[in-house]
């Protein structure tokens, strides 16, 4: 499957592809016209044209997923599409202030309105509950944690109360009839403002998160869990802030730090030292489906419909938020309109309709509007990063001293700073590195993981500095990445118990070389870059993020009628891996894929414990679990056949829906007669309690196979991408176009090429969004978001990415996983941003922008003044 690109070099001509005066129709025509020299446009190098796993029947092949027709025909039911008899609608009263204390309400007028059925406030919401890890450790509830409604709003837009009425119109009028008495408290939206001497605190007890020291290990006992971060007050001095005017992030005290290698020696060895500051933006997830939820109660059980990134793990979250046993919770989520990290286990707001429904004794639907979603939904925290980096004259990094200031929003310590440092340590293989980090609190909406949390920021901040170093050292951009890129079992992060961890595998250099060939990097380097009014630039970035985990379960039931049901707890958020991972079952049992029925999206249908679809772990984790349960199913089928017809289990071949001479229906009937481990009455005690509950519920209904992924592995799963961009900048207006893009991925075994292509290009586009357009804008005087609609947040449109955007994948199996597949959701995000930023700097110079996104205003004004004109440390401009 080695790419075999045509030799187009003799046709390569430097024609501009777009002019700034293009109308939309001209623009589409221009970008649709693939230049005939473009190697991306032909041959078998394109990801979608390659052949994957030629020895396999189902793995690496395109197919129609079981949810597709419903989506195409509009029959797929998202939370908002459900209706129940007597259903009420809910509206929220959102905080008008960025920080305050509710002193009282006047609900009289609202409650007297015809059609208003119930109102709940924070007093109706259960307190935050402790949680339990898989190994039974109790995690104490944080007193700073988020509840569904609050009496001390810590951001403008935080829900204070909820009204249920016969329709939304009535509920909205009821909200307008309510008076809330709020005592305003100090607030701050820019983390640096809170760190100044005498700066305001966003919470009454502080402005940053700090982690208390981990207690010393007791010999013979497992190492103690690091304590959860606590809110504390930290102020820097005027002296610390002296570098602010120069646009350098103050390197003052930081609550978190780690270090490995000899930093001082590293910088001594360096021929070039860069000291750079760069800021990324706060960016909303903008899921097309907002956090809408519907709930009702029946016979003491609560039924909740909402979106999620994990059906199986949202169940215990709802139980914890409502202080209920999971056996009394049913969660329905067959389709989810995007999560990107904002709906890992749904969202705490989904209990609002549940509580209102209990109080009103009727089903309640809570639909969130786009503005509410922007406020109540989640976002990626902005990071200001300052990096001191040492390079030898051949471009090898000798040492990295990285400081991150993360705008963590109003709730929960955000680990994006630490994560960005960990990613930098792996991706550029610095022999010595120090990280110092502040997770600051501000009175802005809550942050959460967003596709490559920390990875996007770390790579967007750091990778373009390699480009700058290459320019200063006269080196090629691909070469400087190749010399620093990881390979094999590369080290990642700081030492744990005296030893630095490592990854399972890394073939990034291979992807970089093949990508450079496909993108025709060396040819493009030689092209002219300037005209009288335009500048062209090319950029390359390397990128990585988490891509797997282990230890989850699978559950298969073969019914006495011969139906083959795979129970699946994976959330269906559009990535298709709830289905893709189960191709492994068909492969292992030599079955026809069309004979497999996947049961997903409803916890009353008895689902096994699955990973959350976050951290790009599903493809890896759940192909492992699928293989484990497929092997268990095969073993049971063979044992049942042996017990029924004699002979050794192995003598009964499992193939095409039969085991030996038995059909699956006959085997299932025999399994029920045999009972015990064959029909689910006895299961592996190592299974998760969620799986055990589900297995117990289906016990006796057929041949029941439940298994946990106990396959060995060595290292942390990460996936990688080499990414290439070309931009064309209009120097008279600052407007630029992304004219070409290629992402070449190292994701292990390719499971489903079409879905993989969608993920690679989609997540690359998410990264591009961070470079070119998307951001929050806040007024710091009032602590209120001013750009809160989608047209103001500016997620990129289809016309902002090249039509001929390309992807490809190595298809080199990960040696530490039996299927060899790794995840891809997050790895291309960081490089999507970084490749554009590097290409822009290539076009307009290094000293034009120090923050992203970069727009025409930044470029035009900086070029005009011959220095960066936007302050890199100011938040939300």
């Amino acid at each position, binding site marked *: 499957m080695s790419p075999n690109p045509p030799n187009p070099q003799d046709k390569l001509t430097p024609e501009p592809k777009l002019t700034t005066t293009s*109308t939309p129709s001209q623009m589409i025509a221009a970008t649709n016209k693939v230049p005939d020299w473009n190697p991306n446009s032909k041959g078998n190098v394109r990801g979608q044209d390659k052949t994957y796993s030629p020895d396999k029947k189902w793995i690496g092949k395109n197919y129609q997923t079981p949810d597709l027709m419903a989506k195409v025909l509009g029959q797929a039911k998202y939370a908002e599409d459900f209706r129940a008899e007597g259903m009420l609608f809910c509206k929220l009263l959102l905080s008008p202030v960025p920080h305050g204390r509710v002193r009282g309400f006047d609900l009289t007028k609202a409650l007297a309105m015809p059609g208003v059925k119930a109102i709940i406030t924070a007093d109706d919401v259960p307190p935050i509950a402790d949680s339990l890890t898989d190994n039974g450790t109790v995690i104490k509830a944080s007193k700073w944690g988020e509840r569904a409604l609050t009496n001390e709003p810590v951001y403008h837009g935080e829900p204070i109360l909820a009204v249920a009425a016969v329709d939304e119109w009535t509920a909205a009028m009821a909200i307008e009839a309510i008076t809330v008495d709020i005592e305003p408290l100090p607030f701050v939206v820019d983390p640096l403002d809170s760190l100044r001497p005498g700066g305001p605190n966003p919470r009454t007890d502080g402005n940053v998160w700090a982690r208390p020291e981990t207690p010393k290990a007791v010999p013979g006992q497992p190492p103690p869990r690091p304590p959860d971060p606590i809110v504390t007050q930290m102020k820097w001095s005027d002296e610390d802030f002296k570098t602010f005017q120069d646009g350098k992030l103050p390197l003052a005290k930081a609550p978190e730090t780690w270090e490995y290698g000899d930093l001082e020696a590293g910088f001594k060895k360096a021929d070039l030292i860069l000291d750079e500051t760069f800021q990324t933006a706060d960016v909303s997830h903008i899921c097309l489906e907002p956090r809408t939820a519907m709930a009702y109660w029946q016979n003491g059980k609560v039924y909740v419909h909402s979106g999620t990134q994990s059906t199986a793990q949202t169940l215990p979250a709802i139980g914890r938020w409502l202080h209920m046993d999971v056996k009394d919770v049913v969660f329905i989520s067959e389709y989810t309109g995007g999560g990107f990290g904002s709906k890992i286990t749904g969202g705490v707001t989904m209990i609002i309709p549940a509580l209102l429904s209990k109080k009103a004794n009727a089903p309640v639907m809570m639909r969130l509007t786009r503005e509410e979603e922007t406020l109540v939904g989640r976002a990626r925290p902005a990071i200001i990063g300052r990096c001191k980096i040492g390079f030898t004259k051949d471009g090898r990094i000798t040492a990295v001293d990285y400081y991150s200031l993360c705008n963590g929003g109003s709730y929960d310590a955000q680990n994006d700073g630490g994560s960005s440092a960990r990613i930098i340590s792996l991706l550029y293989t610095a022999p010595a590195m120090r990280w110092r980090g502040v997770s600051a609190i501000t009175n802005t909406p809550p942050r959460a993981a967003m596709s490559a949390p920390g990875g996007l920021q770390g790579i967007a901040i750091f990778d373009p500095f390699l480009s700058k170093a290459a320019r200063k050292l006269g080196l090629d951009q691909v070469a400087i990445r190749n010399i620093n890129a990881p390979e094999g079992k590369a080290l990642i992060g700081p030492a744990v118990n005296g030893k630095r961890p490592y990854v399972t595998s890394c073939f990034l250099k291979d992807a970089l070389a093949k990508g450079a060939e496909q993108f025709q990097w060396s040819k493009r380097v030689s092209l002219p870059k300037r005209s009288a009014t335009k500048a062209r630039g090319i950029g390359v970035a390397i990128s990585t993020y988490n891509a797997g985990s282990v230890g989850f379960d699978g559950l298969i039931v073969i019914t006495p009628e011969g139906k083959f049901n795979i129970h699946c707890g994976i959330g269906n958020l559009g990535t298709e891996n709830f289905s893709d991972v189960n191709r492994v079952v068909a492969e292992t049992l030599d079955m026809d894929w069309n004979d497999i029925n996947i049961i997903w999206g409803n916890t009353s249908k008895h689902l096994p414990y699955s990973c959350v679809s976050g951290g790009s772990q599903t493809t890896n984790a759940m192909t492992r679990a699928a293989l484990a349960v497929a092997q268990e199913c095969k073993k049971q089928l063979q044992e049942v056949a042996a017990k029924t017809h004699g002979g050794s289990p192995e003598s009964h071949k499992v193939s095409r829906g039969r085991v030996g001479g038995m059909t699956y229906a006959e085997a299932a009937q025999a399994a029920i007669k045999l009972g015990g481990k064959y029909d689910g009455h006895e299961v592996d005690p190592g299974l998760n309690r969620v799986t055990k509950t589900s297995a117990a519920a289906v016990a006796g209904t057929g041949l029941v196979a439940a298994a946990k992924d106990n396959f060995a592995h060595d290292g942390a799963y990460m996936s990688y991408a080499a990414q290439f961009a070309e931009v064309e900048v209009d120097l008279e207006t600052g407007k630029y176009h992304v004219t070409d893009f290629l992402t070449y991925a190292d994701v292990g075994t390719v499971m489903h090429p079409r879905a993989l292509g969608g993920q690679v290009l989609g997540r690359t586009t998410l990264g591009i969004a961070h470079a070119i357009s998307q951001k929050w804008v806040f007024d710091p005087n009032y602590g209120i978001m001013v750009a809160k609609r989608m047209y103001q947040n500016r997620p990129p449109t289809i016309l902002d990415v090249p039509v001929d955007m390309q992807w490809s994948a190595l298809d080199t199996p990960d040696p530490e996983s039996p299927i060899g597949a790794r995840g891809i959701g997050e790895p291309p995000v960081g490089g999507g941003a970084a490749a554009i930023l590097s290409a822009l700097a290539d076009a307009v110079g290094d000293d034009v922008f120090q923050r992203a996104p970069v727009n025409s*205003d930044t470029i035009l004004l900086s070029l005009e003044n011959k220095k960066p004109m936007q302050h890199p440390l100011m938040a939300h401009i």
Partner: protein
Amino acid sequence: MAVIRDVMPNFDLVQPASLADARKLLDSDPDNVWLMAGGLDSFDWLKDRIRKPKTVVDLTGIDEMRGVRAWNDGIEIGPLTTLTDVVNDPMVKAKYSILSQAAELVASPQIRNQGTIGGNVSQDTRCWYYRSGWPCYRAGGNLCYADTPVGRNREHAILDAQRCVAVSPSDSAPALIALDAKFVISTKNGEKTIDAQDYFLGPAIDITHMTILKPGDILTAIRIPGTWANSKFYFEKIRDRNVWDFPLMNIAAAMKMSGNTITDARMAVAGAAARPWRLTDVEAQIKGKTADEATGKAAGELAVKDAVPLQFNAYKIPLMKNLVKRAISGVQEATWEA
């Protein structure tokens, strides 16, 4: 009383089928009526519950106010004509391609299918403070929230700001000014016709209104004379995204040429001031000059001589300078140099 956004309030919806019927409605209760064309601007105001009119008059059923027809030596465009229909109209394309080009750069295809040319010129500003219901000057209050030392004003005005720094977001308005269009308005006292540029108001004249329309007035026709048909046109819009975005700035120019000499010109920009800003000084200066880089540069300097930047919008000064230059001397096509 608490505030809630994004839920449509109740109102009486009236859908007249003729201009005469609409006229009757307006004459009976002009102050409580909200006129709606495509709804792109109106629905935002209504759903945000910032404007709560008693009656909404949906004009889209009035067929006589839709379509493009010949008028004297020019054309007449019904204000309810969708932007898509303006873009595709053969007469517009043949004689006034600058208008077709400007209309095609509005927002997105979906919005152009719904939005009308009358709505595009009559729409309110998109200042995010004002649109969020902040009690600013334009909303009848006594403060501008955008023009403070830390106000977020990247998209705001550099010209003609008087207390309010909001800008006109229209793409079609500068093109209509460049074409010397006339706007026909039905009022309770009869019909009046005004020049396009006089349809728009700056804050010094009326800080709470973007147009001259008074309660009870209806824009009934846009007429474009033959004077500027097929002259040398230039339109350019700079925006952050390639589709679905308001202009950071746009420029429309019509020039009559004799060889390469400009004999007459009309030019306007949006995104620079609260109203589409006609560049009369530039028009006068370039008359009789050669349409070259030097003329363009000098015109650009003149165009921005009164510009005052806010904290985050200083880029609009070089942007406007360069757009004026390009409108005169064209964009130098890329000849890539090593």
